[in-house]
């Protein structure tokens, strides 16, 4: 054992070394100890350590990965908010408190932005309506894009280009999110790449690494046992099914392909129907802003669609006769596509409204009569989506899951038995929070305080989900592996990020920014700030930047990256060959023996 073995070894070594070497060794040990203690202190500062440890003990590492993912998102949103705050909000706050001169480039098309803030005596419930819809008094706060009316701020010594800072911070937070997610997923991705086959070593993984030694609860242990049994039986059956699939006749194959084709057409039809209803709902809510319910119509439609479609998909997949593992993955892919594309459809319908004028072409590039400050309107939509998402999560937990537990526990009728106790479905929960995070990424450009709102939202969701898990749920009978789940979460998050970059870049580069509000007054598009700022730089720096952004550089960079990728792929192929050769050699050596 350690203590005895290493102790004897150390005593032996100590007697051989000179006093100088002994002193050096003891200092090295002290430094190592200090470093370990510092790391321990840092890790004790980690948020929610005790809660996550408790969940791990009761439910194992699969569900634990969901909660550590949630913690990661809280940190990410906090950092994004700090970025926005320090580069965009702080200069304005300083400006207001110290009365520094501000500077606006005036444009012939500029109009006075009519304030929709309520005047005079305001009835209390209208404040609540404003809070929920993001309109009214909220439009005149730091919350929305429209409030940041300054181009540049002249501080005593420096000239601060707020417009440029706004644009650069947007690019920076998207880039930062990308780097952080990729770094976090690098480990899981490497492992997934190594496992080149679908089921490579899955049996060994399940048997040798199947038991979570950190489970302390007797109940959880017996549940883990039954879920392992279920998993093993499913895998063995899947192997038998694969054999059956390989033995299929031609006629059966044609029949299966025909069924799959028809069902896929049906799925596409359902998706198209959902997207069309989201489009119609958005246009309707933009035209009628009388009631709060109409304002929330797109959110309601999206939530309904995202509730019904997973149930539909899980029913359809049963007829398509795939292997069980592929069934799960395919259903999940469809759900991911549905969730994230619904946001895209909403934005597309908003965009069509904004750039559509009564006459053929819009003078300003956007409908300046209806949308004098269109960025704030988009920001309000994102704000409403976030608020509604949070309300739905809380409402479902309180009004659906809690009564379900009461009914199942106290009622003995057939309905209760069929419905069963709530299972904590990790994929659906992860899709929920990735959906919220995608909205946050898109909305931060139009609503700089949205990351702060999302941080608070995820903070509360952690506690709500934890309480719901401990009180209402039992662990899923179909367990979600910890390793592949980490990779799955981050892959879906990356898809969300890619989707979020698209609307932001389109609106920055294509759509004309509104001339009545915001920091980009005077420029045609928001992107124009950058070339203007670059042209003001000294000649040397300017020529370097122009060289970097020229086509020649882009093409050569692309070619070099492709070459590097081909090289790495070839290297991986060669390594695989060597491994196979060594394996064969081992077999031969043992046979010879």
């Amino acid at each position, binding site marked *: 054992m350690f203590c005895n073995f*290493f102790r004897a070894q150390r005593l032996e070594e100590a007697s051989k070394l000179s006093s100088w070497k002994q002193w050096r060794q003891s200092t090295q040990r002290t430094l190592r100890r200090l470093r370990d203690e510092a790391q321990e202190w840092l890790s004790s500062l980690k948020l929610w350590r005790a809660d996550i440890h408790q969940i791990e003990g009761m439910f194992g590492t699969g569900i634990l990965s969901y909660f550590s993912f949630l913690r990661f998102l809280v940190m990410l949103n906090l950092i994004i908010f700090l970025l926005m705050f320090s580069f965009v909000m702080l200069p304005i706050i300083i400006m207001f408190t110290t009365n520094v001169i501000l500077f606006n480039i005036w444009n012939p098309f500029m109009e006075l932005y009519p304030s929709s803030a309520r005047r005079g005596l305001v009835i209390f419930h209208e404040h609540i309506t404003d809070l929920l819809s993001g309109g009214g008094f909220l439009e005149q706060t730091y919350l929305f894009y429209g409030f940041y009316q300054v181009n540049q701020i002249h501080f005593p010594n420096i000239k601060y280009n707020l417009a440029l800072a706004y644009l650069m911070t947007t690019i920076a937070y998207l880039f930062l999110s990308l780097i952080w997610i990729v770094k976090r997923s690098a480990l*899981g991705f490497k492992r997934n790449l190594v496992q080149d086959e679908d089921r490579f070593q899955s049996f*060994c993984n399940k048997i040798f*690494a199947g*038991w979570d030694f950190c489970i302390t609860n007797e109940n959880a242990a017996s549940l883990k046992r039954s879920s392992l049994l279920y998993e093993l039986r499913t895998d063995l059956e899947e192997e038998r099914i694969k054999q059956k699939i390989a033995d299929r006749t031609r006629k059966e194959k044609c029949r299966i392909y025909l069924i799959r084709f028809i069902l896929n057409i049906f799925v596409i039809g359902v998706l198209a129907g959902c997207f069309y209803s989201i489009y119609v709902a958005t246009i309707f809510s933009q035209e009628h802003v009388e009631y709060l319910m109409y304002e929330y119509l797109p959110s309601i439609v999206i939530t309904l669609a995202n509730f019904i479609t997973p149930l539909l998909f899980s029913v359809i997949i049963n007829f398509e006769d795939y292997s069980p593992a592929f069934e799960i993955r395919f259903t999940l892919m469809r759900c991911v596509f549905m969730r994230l594309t619904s946001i895209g459809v909403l934005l597309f319908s908003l965009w069509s409204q904004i750039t559509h004028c009564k006459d053929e072409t819009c003078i300003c590039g956007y409908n300046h009569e209806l949308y004098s400050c269109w960025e704030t309107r988009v920001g309000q939509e994102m704000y409403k989506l976030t608020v509604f998402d949070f309300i739905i999560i809380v409402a479902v937990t309180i009004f659906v899951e809690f009564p379900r537990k009461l009914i199942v526990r106290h009622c003995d009728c057939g309905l209760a038995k069929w419905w069963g106790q709530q299972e904590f479905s990790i994929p659906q929960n992860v899709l929920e929070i990735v959906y919220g995070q995608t909205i946050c990424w898109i909305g931060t450009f139009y609503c700089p305080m949205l990351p702060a709102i999302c941080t608070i939202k995820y903070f509360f969701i952690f506690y709500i989900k934890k309480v719901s898990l401990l009180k209402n749920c039992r662990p899923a009978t179909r367990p979600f592996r*910890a*390793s592949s789940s980490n990779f799955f979460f981050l892959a879906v998050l990356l898809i969300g990020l890619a989707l979020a970059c698209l609307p932001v870049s389109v609106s920055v580069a294509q759509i004309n920014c509104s001339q009545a509000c915001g920091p980009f007054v005077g420029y045609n598009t928001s992107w124009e700030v950058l070339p203007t700022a670059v042209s003001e730089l000294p000649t040397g720096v300017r020529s370097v930047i122009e060289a970097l952004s020229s086509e020649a550089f882009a093409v050569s960079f692309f070619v070099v990256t492709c070459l590097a990728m081909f090289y790495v792929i070839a290297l991986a192929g060669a390594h695989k060959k060597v491994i196979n050769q060594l394996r064969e050699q081992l077999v031969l050596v*043992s046979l010879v023996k």
Partner: protein
Amino acid sequence: MGTTASQLGKELLSEYQELTFLTKQEILLAHKRFSELLTKDEKDLPNTKVSMERILTLPELKSNPFRKRICHVFSTSEQKDGSLTFENFLDLLSAFSDSATLEIKSHYAFRIFDFDDDGTLDRGDLEKLVNCLTGETDDTRLTPEEMRQLIDNILEESDIDRDGTVNLSEFQHVISRSPDFVSSFKIVL
């Protein structure tokens, strides 16, 4: 060299920090939990051995299907009864700690799974392993047909030299490719 009093001496503490993968906090917590298992007279004796039954009352081990094997592997007593001294206990926690290397963990995992202590995992060991994982009662066991199919699959994936058993290096090779091992082979007090 052992626990002579109910408090752990500073020198001893730093020595344990050297020799194991545990931090100071973890060693102190382990000492506290171990002392709770001792009776009043045993607390004053050095190098007390705690019997396996008492060790198995710890909540971290109580629900573990491999608890008896764990005690046997980490025990250094001549009677082979699975009793642990405090240093054995520290070794146990060190092997299962967060900072232990994959090599250490796979080495101990191999010894825990080797039910007949013959240095290799043969079909009998694997069968006992699977039954530990799924449960001991009749309706939680796999059928003999399923068991045979499962063990055939395991040997196909891990037995590189095709001798019908998994030896330590084959086991370590398989574990190094297993993504879940490090996160599940962990006991934290």
